[in-house]
């Protein structure tokens, strides 16, 4: 179906199901119970899952397939956001004008930046992309203030023209009348409350399309070529193949994905700020991709969801919550445990993230996906063939050149 073999079709259907059922799946605990704080089924967070999922899928097409580590992808995210907000300011709040423009402008920027940066590889490529992103960030903050509104961030003012704005049109981002911030269904089953949000489903459908596209890219001859570049570029060059058009295409595609994600960010919340372009934001997408598993289809999405979920949950945990958790312990030990855990939660969430990230890079280069595979393999141990298969896989891994 859709040009996929049966295994991939099944995979895609599972992803579609999971994405569409997210508002239910992420709300496993009843309202008012002690575990309710672990629910993630509210619109704002789910939108971020979908959007950062798109961002990470795009980044993975570049980093996962070709191995080029870009430290400047946040620039495209910012460019996407700015384009969408500009369309709000000039035309009206319908996102249909802004999103294509976001993809096109970020694609053009990616073409220019990629054309120059891809002349080098390895660490030089990372530094070149970093330099470009920092340049865009610095310019957005200073000279380009008429375009970007500097530190305040770009937003829509009453004095803006908005030539297409009709009298009855909603005054917040919408898609042909479907207002992003509204919920179309809020059922409650017993103590469980679910929120079905327009914005989330808009992002989710786009995310599914983006995922499908990346699935096709992974399975296409083009994707194969990108993988070949990752495993041995020199050899590709010796066979008389010019690899640069392929890497450039991958760079532009992933830049467009980032632009789309930035555009969606502005579609959910009509704001665009320069801090979206800072290199720490580029670092974040690198974290997501590596944490989930670079080069795998599902990994980046998992990584994005994982980081955004725990960012949200961990930063909500304060000392009171900790005291209730460790309440079953004797007083002295309770206080001790709270003191120990305190630096890692709440505002210290980044510390946990950093440690986790280091642990993943050190012990699990394949990320969460590899973890899943390892756990899965543990359960399949009983199979007689598996030991044999594993030895084969280990041999294959040992033979793969480490760049």
């Amino acid at each position, binding site marked *: 179906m859709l040009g996929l073999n049966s295994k991939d079709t099944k995979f895609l259907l599972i992803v579609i199901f999971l994405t569409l059922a997210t508002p239910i799946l992420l709300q496993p605990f009843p309202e008012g119970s002690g575990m309710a704080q672990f629910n993630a089924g509210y619109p704002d967070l789910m939108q971020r899952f979908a959007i950062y999922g798109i961002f990470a899928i795009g980044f993975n097409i570049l980093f996962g397939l070709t191995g080029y580590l870009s430290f400047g992808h946040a620039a495209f995210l910012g460019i996407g956001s700015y384009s969408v907000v500009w369309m709000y300011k000039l035309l009206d709040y319908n996102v249909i004008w802004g999103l294509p423009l976001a993809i096109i402008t970020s694609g053009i920027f990616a073409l220019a930046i990629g054309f120059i940066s891809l002349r080098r590889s390895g660490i030089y490529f*990372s530094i070149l992309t970093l330099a470009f992103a920092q340049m865009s960030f610095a310019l957005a903050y200073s000279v380009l203030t008429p375009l970007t509104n500097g530190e305040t961030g770009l937003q829509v003012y009453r004095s803006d023209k908005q030539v297409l704005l009709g009298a009855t049109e909603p005054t917040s981002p919408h898609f042909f009348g479907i207002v992003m911030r509204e919920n179309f269904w809020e059922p409650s089953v017993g103590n469980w409350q679910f929120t079905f949000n327009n914005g989330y489903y808009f992002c989710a459908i786009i995310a599914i399309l983006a995922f499908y596209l990346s699935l096709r890219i992974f399975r296409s001859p083009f994707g194969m070529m990108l993988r070949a570049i990752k495993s041995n570029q020199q050899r590709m060059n010796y066979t008389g193949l010019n690899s640069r058009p392929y890497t450039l295409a991958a760079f532009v595609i992933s830049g467009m994905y980032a632009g789309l994600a930035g555009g969606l960010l502005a579609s959910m919340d009509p704001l665009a700020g320069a801090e979206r372009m800072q290199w720490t934001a580029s670092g974040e997408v690198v974290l997501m991709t590596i944490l989930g598993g670079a080069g795998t289809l599902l990994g980046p999405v998992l990584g994005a969801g994982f980081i955004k979920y725990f960012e949200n949950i961990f930063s909500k945990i304060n000392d009171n919550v900790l005291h209730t958790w460790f309440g079953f312990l004797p007083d002295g030990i309770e206080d001790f445990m709270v003191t120990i855990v305190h630096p890692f939660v709440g505002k210290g969430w980044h510390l946990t993230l*950093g440690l986790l990230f280091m642990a993943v890079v050190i012990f699990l280069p394949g990320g969460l996906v590899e973890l899943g595979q390892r756990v899965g393999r543990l359960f399949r141990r009983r199979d007689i063939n598996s030991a044999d298969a594993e030895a084969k896989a280990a041999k294959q891994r040992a033979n793969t050149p480490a760049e």
Partner: protein
Amino acid sequence: MDAILLQILNGLDKGSAYALIALGLTLIFGTLGVVNFAHGALFMIGAFCAVTMQRILTISQTTIDESRTDFLGNPMKVETPYVENWFGPELGGAIIDWAVPLAILFAIPVMICIGFIMERGLIKHFYKRPHADQILVTFGLAIVLQEVIKYFYGANPIPTPAPAAFTGSFDFGVLLGFDPNAIIYPLWRLVYFVFSLIIIAAVFGFLQFTTFGMVVRAGMADRETVGLLGINIDKRFTIMFGIAAAVAGLAGVMYTPINSPNYHMGMDFLVLSFVVVVVGGMGSLPGAVLAGFLLGILESFASMNEIKSLVPGIDQIIIYLIAIVILLTRPRGLMGRKGVMEE
């Protein structure tokens, strides 16, 4: 003419910081072949060594002074630092005043220890892994170090003043025959510049004129052969990592009076220092120093009003622009050796 001289001087202090950090980065890259994204964090930890020193020196004893009262009429509590109690107000006050320079003594062992732990505990395991992995793991380490500092010292910048003797400025113009007040330069920046020159000279002297340095240079050129000669090159490289960490730390200690340290200052400097290393040439020590000063001075020229009005925004992007041009035209950098990281 005096304007040009002033800009050169203004560029020197930032240039010194770039040069020192880039020197440490290059030492690590040249010896161990590791791209260390946590080097900026080492610079930041150095700066917080100065803050710690200042805090240690001002640990105070609270006494109640009956002769004075506060606004509620109660006897006033007076806090006197222990240092003043022990050494008398004059000597004690002077010691507190000189907290930043004194922190150098404190920072050197601390930084060398941190360097050792980092190399032996983490980076050792990454020699055989690709550069991307090294970048990623040290990037993670940088986040962790930064957050640890944030946890203990808070997110706000902490002012750490220079000794009173160096707070003034120095009329440089008079020396060179310009009008008085034409070129005024803060004294501490001059101290910072001289200090960085001393450190740079010390590192180069150490590498050039000691047996240890000779072995390290030999190891940089051909690690395997040196190892085959029966020298424990790994141990020496670990020591070099400690020294590189100390250089970054010292740069941080002395930088505190210029800019109040905060937890993300390392990241801010790191990106620029990498650019400096690339412009100077990966693995070339003189290149790193030269590029550091050069970019510092160029940055200060670009922030002149005359130039800013000509090309708006140039002061923000000049360093990156230069890096892009250099990388595209001469990938091995200004003074890079041929064939080192040139792909």
